[in-house]
């Protein structure tokens, strides 16, 4: 029968085990363990892919923050020495400020995505079950 891992575990413990021999119960437990292992592999694979994406986004944001910080320092020095017209200074400051904001937003996104990965790491089975609710073909087929 096709059902979520949580349902399969509940049915195994509450419905199947009280009515079958130890041998059949043992086989069913092994089947459940194999299903859970499959779910964990899916979760691991998903986490690795998302981790790579987060690192790419993080690297870009960090490069941007470093570059804007350095350019802001140069700009401030030019401003202090009055080596730049106010209008030009204002325009460059606005551009660098916007770039800083965008890079910080990207870091914030990385943090939110990391929180999501943490949730999946904490409970990969719940994540897999939620995934199968969206993609029914992934629902596992059990012998009970």
């Amino acid at each position, binding site marked *: 029968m096709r059902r979520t891992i949580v349902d399969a575990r509940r049915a195994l413990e509450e419905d199947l085990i009280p009515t079958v021999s130890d041998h059949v119960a043992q086989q069913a437990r092994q089947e459940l363990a194999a299903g859970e292992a499959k779910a964990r592999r899916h979760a691991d694979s998903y*986490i*690795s892919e998302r*981790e790579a994406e*987060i*690192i790419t986004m*993080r690297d870009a*944001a*960090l490069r941007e*923050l*470093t570059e*804007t*910080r350095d350019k*802001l*320092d140069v*700009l*401030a*020095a030019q*401003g*202090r020495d*009055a080596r*730049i017209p*106010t209008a030009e*200074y*204002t325009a460059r*400051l606005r551009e*660098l*400020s916007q770039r*800083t904001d965008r*890079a*910080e937003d990207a*870091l914030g996104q*990385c*943090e939110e995505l*990391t*929180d999501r*990965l*943490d949730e999946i*790491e904490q409970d990969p089975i719940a994540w897999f079950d939620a995934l199968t609710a969206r993609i029914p073909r992934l629902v596992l087929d059990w012998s009970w």
Partner: protein
Amino acid sequence: MGKAERLRRLLASDRRTADQANKSLLQAEDALTALEEREQQRSAREQAVRGSR
């Protein structure tokens, strides 16, 4: 340590760079204020010179 925890630590260290960028932004804004004040003073001086002619 899990991957999420490693990422979290990495991102926490990045916040220091973000703080530095924000500090630089504040300094650049201060420098703009000084620049504008100097420009206003220069403009006022130029007007005074024109007025005295």
